[in-house]
């Protein structure tokens, strides 16, 4: 199972990074969102840390939708999905492989989004950085677990981008709230309670989403009509 998972992730990253088109689109969309939100400020004004963190995570969420649509579209060109279903390992390896590839691509995008958010939205990093990085990792893992599951569900649908957004975003709300709250603290927003509670929320939703993915993926990614 791990062998297929690593093969899948390696193949997806090779195809996406070599061709670049899927990642470039996602990066441009995220940067565009950051830029458009930056226009809401006057010259020299600084957006509230909570707002800046929200814009960062909205950019990440839309980027993620494009990433997982792109990743699952790779199997649709010549119906390689059927070949994967014939592999003598649990099909969840595909979900894990796509999730890992999506996580790497999302982190690469966020490496660009974070400085862009600081520059466009006038932020400074002054809060608890280790907790913020932990929140980033936990939120990204949950987003990719659910993105990989629902990306498979949306594949083959005529309006898959919008379908994925409509189904995915409500489910991600608690995770995004956790990411936004801890992210805002990293950008200097005061928080009497600290990031602990939100990190717990993110970890709990990660566990739920990972469990749901492992259980449901075989029903979603099937060869039958």
């Amino acid at each position, binding site marked *: 199972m791990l062998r297929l998972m*690593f093969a899948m992730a390696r193949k997806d990253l090779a195809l996406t990074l070599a061709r670049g088109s899927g990642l470039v689109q996602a990066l441009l969309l995220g940067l565009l969102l950051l830029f458009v939100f930056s226009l809401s400020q006057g010259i020299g004004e600084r957006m509230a840390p909570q707002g800046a963190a929200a814009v960062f995570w909205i950019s990440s969420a839309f980027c993620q939708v494009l990433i997982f649509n792109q990743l699952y579209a790779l199997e649709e060109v010549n119906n390689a999905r059927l070949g994967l279903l014939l592999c003598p390992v649990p099909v969840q390896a595909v979900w894990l492989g796509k999730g890992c590839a999506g996580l790497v691509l999302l982190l690469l995008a966020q490496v660009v989004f974070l400085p862009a958010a600081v520059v466009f939205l006038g932020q400074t990093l002054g809060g608890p950085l280790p907790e913020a990085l932990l929140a980033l990792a936990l939120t990204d893992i949950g987003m990719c677990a659910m993105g990989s599951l629902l990306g498979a569900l949306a594949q083959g649908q005529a309006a898959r981008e919008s379908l994925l957004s409509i189904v995915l975003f409500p489910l991600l709300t608690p995770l995004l709230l956790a990411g936004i709250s801890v992210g805002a603290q990293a950008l200097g927003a005061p928080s009497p309670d600290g990031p602990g509670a939100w990190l717990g929320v993110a970890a709990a939703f990660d566990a739920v989403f990972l469990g749901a993915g492992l259980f449901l993926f075989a029903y979603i990614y099937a060869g039958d*009509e």
Partner: protein
Amino acid sequence: MLELVRVAKVYGVKVVFKDVSCALAAGSVSLLVGGNGAGKSTLMRIMAGLSRPSAGAANVADQARVGYLGHATFLYPGLTAVENLAFWRDAYGLKLTRDDIMAGLARVGLEAHAHERAGVFSRGMAQRLNLARVLMQAPDVLLLDEPGTGLDAASLALLRREITAARQRGACVVLISHDLAGDAPLADRLLALENRRLAYDGLPAGFKGFAADAGRPNAADEAQGGPACCA
């Protein structure tokens, strides 16, 4: 090796076929024929485990040892020929070296194109690469759905040699083909789907064509080896 027990497939209210039963042995080649829409590909997908029968059961000795070559090539256009095979080797958990993969490409005459992206391959080259993918698995059950599509005469001859070789090493081969004249000599057995059931199951030489073609001129001749009578 492969057994179908009263298999039926229904889409909504449309019955594609029903009560299809047969047992296919190791070291045999079975030719599956039928008119357009008779359900040949659907039946093969059921054999491969890619589609669930609406009724009945398809039993394969070892589902992990099934090789399937269908209408789609399963290739990634952005990967080279050798990268495609390396991916499927890892996906199927095969213990093959890069030299084995290159030998597989040479076997289908693609060694000179090993480092070209599959996206630039012609239909015939893609089909040969697809064939290399299936042969690399050395499957116990080899399911071939119109594998001759897009192949030139030399590639067709190669395909028939590989089918014979698979039978000789003990594989159970099921072949859907438009070319009854070319492929019937390979087969030990012929299965014909007609009128939503298995209308014929026996030696290829005993097959007299489809009832629907009975009034058509030359139908009987075509059934004995004329061009394109059955698909």
